[in-house]
C-alpha cells in the first residue's frame, strides 16, 4: 500500500525536453519518447521552480510521469523548454510598474506595465481581488479571471509605490 503514495522523483539527467515545431512540449523521460507533455507546479505561488510534475497527454486523461525536484537540475535546453512551457501554462504576468489606479463607480481600474506587456486590470473591489501573500507580495485578479503578480512591492518605482500605499 505504502509505495502507492510515494512520488516518483525523476533523475534530471534522464529528462530531455524540447518544444515541437507545432508549439507542444515533447521529449524523452527515462528513455521513453513522449509526443505531448506538460508541466504542473505543485506550489505555484510559493515554490514556482520546484516540485514540477511532468504529465503525459498520450491518453484521454493526463498521466503523471514523475516529478522534478528542481528546474535548475535540468540540462540547459530542457530547462529553457520547461521555462517556456511554464510561461505559457501559468499566464501570471509580473507587474513592473503601475501607471494609475482609478476608482470608477464600483470599479477599480489599474493601468499597469508587466513583463509581458502593458495591461489593464479591472476589479470589482479590492478585498475580493487582491490577495496579500507575505509582507509585500500581491496577487491581483481581474473580473475576467486574469491574474497578475506583484512580486515585491518595495522594488517598484516611486510613483507605483505611492499609488499602492495610497490605495492598499
Amino acid at each position, binding site marked *: 500500500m505504502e509505495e502507492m503514495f510515494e512520488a516518483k522523483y525523476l533523475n534530471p539527467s534522464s529528462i530531455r525536453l524540447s518544444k*515541437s515545431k*507545432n*508549439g*507542444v512540449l515533447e521529449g524523452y523521460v527515462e528513455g521513453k519518447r513522449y*509526443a*505531448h507533455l*506538460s508541466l504542473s507546479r505543485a506550489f*505555484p505561488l510559493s515554490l514556482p521552480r520546484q516540485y514540477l510534475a511532468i504529465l503525459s*497527454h498520450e491518453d484521454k*486523461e493526463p498521466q503523471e510521469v514523475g516529478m522534478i525536484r528542481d528546474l535548475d537540475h535540468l540540462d540547459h535546453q530542457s530547462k529553457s523548454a520547461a521555462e*517556456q512551457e511554464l*510561461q*505559457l*501554462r*501559468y*499566464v*501570471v*504576468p509580473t507587474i513592473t510598474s503601475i501607471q494609475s489606479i482609478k476608482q*470608477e*463607480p*464600483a*470599479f477599480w481600474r489599474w493601468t499597469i506595465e*508587466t*513583463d*509581458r*506587456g*502593458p*495591461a*489593464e*486590470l*479591472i476589479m*470589482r473591489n*479590492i*478585498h475580493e481581488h487582491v490577495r496579500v501573500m507575505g509582507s509585500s507580495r500581491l496577487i491581483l485578479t*481581474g*473580473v*475576467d*479571471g*486574469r*491574474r497578475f503578480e506583484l512580486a515585491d512591492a518595495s522594488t517598484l518605482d516611486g510613483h507605483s509605490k505611492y499609488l499602492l500605499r*495610497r*490605495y*492598499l
Partner: protein
Amino acid sequence: MSVVSGHRARQVNAIGPARFFNHELDVQVRPELGRNGGFALSIRELEMDQVHLELDHEPLVSLRADLREDGTFGDSWLVISPAEACVLSSDHDVRIRVPISDIREAELDRGVGGGSLLLKTDVGPMVLARFSVGLYPKFGYAVTVLNALTKGEEVPLPSERDIPQVCPSCGRPLGEGTSVCPTCLDRGKVIRRLAGFARPYSGRLAVGGLILILATAFQLVPPYVTKLLVDNVLVPHQSSSFTKAVTYLLALVLTLFGVNLLGMLTQSLRGYIGVWCGSRITGDIRHKTYDALMKLSLSYFDRRQTSQFIGRVNSDANSMREFLTDGVVFLVSQILMVLAIAGVMLKMNWLLALLSFATIPLIIVASLVVWPMVHNLWDKQWRSILRLNVLVGDSLQGIRVVKAFGRESSEKSRYNTANQELVMQTTKMEGIWQGVFPMFAFLSSTGGLLVWYIGGRGVLHGTVTLGTLIAFNSYLGMFIGPLQWFSQFMNWLNNTLAAADRIFEILDAKSTVVDRPDTPSLGEVKGAVELQNVTFGYESHRPVLKEISIDVLPGEMIGLVGKSGAGKSTLINMICRFYDPDRGSILIDGHNLRDIQQEEWHKSIGVVLQETFLFDGTVAENISYAYPDATQENIMRVARIANAHSFIMKLPDGYDTLVGERGHLLSGGERQRIAIARALLHNPRILILDEATASLDNETERQIQEALARLVKGRTTFAIAHRLSTLRNADRLVVLDGGRIAEVGTHEELLEQKGAYFKLVEAQRELSKIRGVEG
C-alpha cells in the same frame, strides 16, 4: 458586412496593446440565412475584407487571441471556415493553415490565467492559438465548432455563456449574475434610487419638511430679537420713558421665551419624523435585500464567504439607516439654515456679510483636499475590519478544529496581526480627523475676527448699530457651524452611497436560475426523469458533467456511484435545479425542468443532503419546515417512518425540544433522521439522498437504512452513498467517471462486467478488510 464602419474602428483598436475592454465582445447579429434560417448570433471579430486570405467558404468564426508564442501579450487571429482553420498574425499574415480533414479533435488546454487551443492531428498535437483566461468562453466555442466540423455535425450557435457579458452602453464587463453596469449607474442615480425607497412615506416626509422649515425659522428669530433688545432697549434713548422701555424689554424677553419653546417643540418633532421615516425606509431596504438574497441561485453564494457576506450586508444596511435617519434631516436643515442666514445677513449689512463669507472658499478647498485622503483611509479601515470579521467568523465556526489541533495560540497570533493592522488603520484614519477639526475651526474663526474688526469700526463710527454687530456674530457662528460639518458630511454621504451601491449590487444580481414567465402548472408529478446530453460546469469553461443522458422511470431507484469529484453531487444539484445545465436538458414527465416553476418543483422533491442542516427551533418545527401546516399527528407519523420517533420521545421536551443552533444538541444520526422525516413530510414524488448514511455507526446506519427503505418505496429516487453496500436495493446503478457515465446496470450486472464498478467494490472490500483488522 452589416456593421462595417463600426467594425473597422474597433479593429484598429484591437491591434494595440492587450487591453481589457476593446474587442472583448464583438457579436454581430447578421442578416444571414443560416441553416435554421433567420438571424444568427455569431462571433466574428475580424473584418475579412482587409485580409489577404483566400478561403473557399465564408468564415464561421474569427477570434482574436491575445498571447504570443513566448507568453507576452500580442494579438493573432483564428479564422475557422467549414474547410479549414487558419491563424493570422497581428499584421494579417497567414501563419498556419490546417484543413479540417486533418483534425482528429480540438481541445481547450486550460492553464492558470491562460491556455491554448490544441489540435490533435494525424501528425501529432499542435497548438493553434494561445490566449488569456478571459477569452476561454469564446475559444471554448471555437473548440465546439471545430469538433462539430470534424465530425460532420451541425455547427452549434454560440450560447449566451460563450460570450462574456458586457454593458451595452460602455462595453465594460458585467459581473457574473449582475445585470446593471456599475459605471453607468452614476451617483445621482443611486440617490434617486434611494429616494425611490422614500416614496411610500412621501406624506409624512412632506409634513416633516414643513416642520423643518418652521424649526429653521424659529432658530433664526432669537439673534434678531437680541438685536432689537440691544438697539431699542439697552442702548439708552432720550425719547422713551423708563417704564415704556421695561415693558418693551419684558415683551421681547417673552417673545424669546415663546420662540425658544416653539423651536424646541418643532425640533424634537422634526427629529421624530426623521427617525420614523428613516427606520422604515431602511427596514424596507433590508427586507428587499433579504428577499433578493433568497431569490439568488446557489452559484452566487458559492463564490462568497458567508460570514463576510452577512457582516457586509448588515453593516451596509446600518450605515444607510444612520444616514437616512440623521443624515438627511441634518443635510436639509443645514442647507435651509445656511441659505436663510446668508439672506438675513446680506439684508442687515451686505458689506459685513460679504466679509464673513470670505473664508468659505478656503473651507471648501480644504475639504476638497482632505476628503479624498479620508476616503481612501476609510476604505482601508473598512477592509481591515472586514478581514478581522472574516477571521473571527472563520475560527469561531471552526472552533472544534482549532481546539482539536491545539492551534489556539496560532489563531490568537493570526487575530493579533489583523487586529494590529486595524489599530494602525484606525489610528491613521482618526488621526487625520483629529487634525481636520482644529483646522476648520481656525479657518472659520478667522472670518469672525474680520467681522469684529470691521464691524467694530462701524459701531465706533456710528454706521453700524451695536445690536447689528452682536446679531451678526451670533449668525456667523450658526452659519460657519454647518460649513465645518459639510466636509465631513460629504464623506458620510459618500460612504452611504458606497454602502447603498453594495446593497443595490445584491438587489441587481440576477439569479442564474430563472423561472420563465407564464409557465404552466406541472400538476401531478409522476416522477419520470430524463436527462438529455446534460453538460454543466460551475465555471462555464470547466465542465463537471459531460453529456449525461439517462432515462429514469417513475418509482425507479437510481444509485449514483463514482469516485469523489466524479460529478455525483453535481448531478443531484442539477436535478434539484440549483443550477441550470449549460447544454442539454432535463425533462420531468416530458416537461423541460426550465419550464417548471422552481417553487412548485421543490415542493415535489424531497432532499436529504450530506450536511443535515437544522434551523434553530424545535424538533417539530424542523420536521415541518417545508410544510408548516402539518398536523402533530402527521409529524409524528413521518418521524416514526424515519426511525426518529423513539429517540425524540426519550428527550425530556419531546417534539418541543430546541435543537440549538445548527442542531448541535443532537447527534449526527439523530439529525439525519430528522432530516429524513423532513424530506418525507410533504410526500414527495422524487427523492434525493446525498450520502445520507455517511459517517454513522453501524446500528444507526441500520436504523436509517430501514427508514430509507420505507421512504424510497414508490418514489423516483436518486441516491449517493459512500458505502456501496447501501445501494444494493437500487434498481439501477449509474457509475460516473470524470463527469461522464461509465456504466449503467444492476449491482449484479455491473459486477459481472468487471468494469469501473467492480473496481470500486474491490477497493472498498480492501478497505473494509483493513477496517476489520483495525477494529
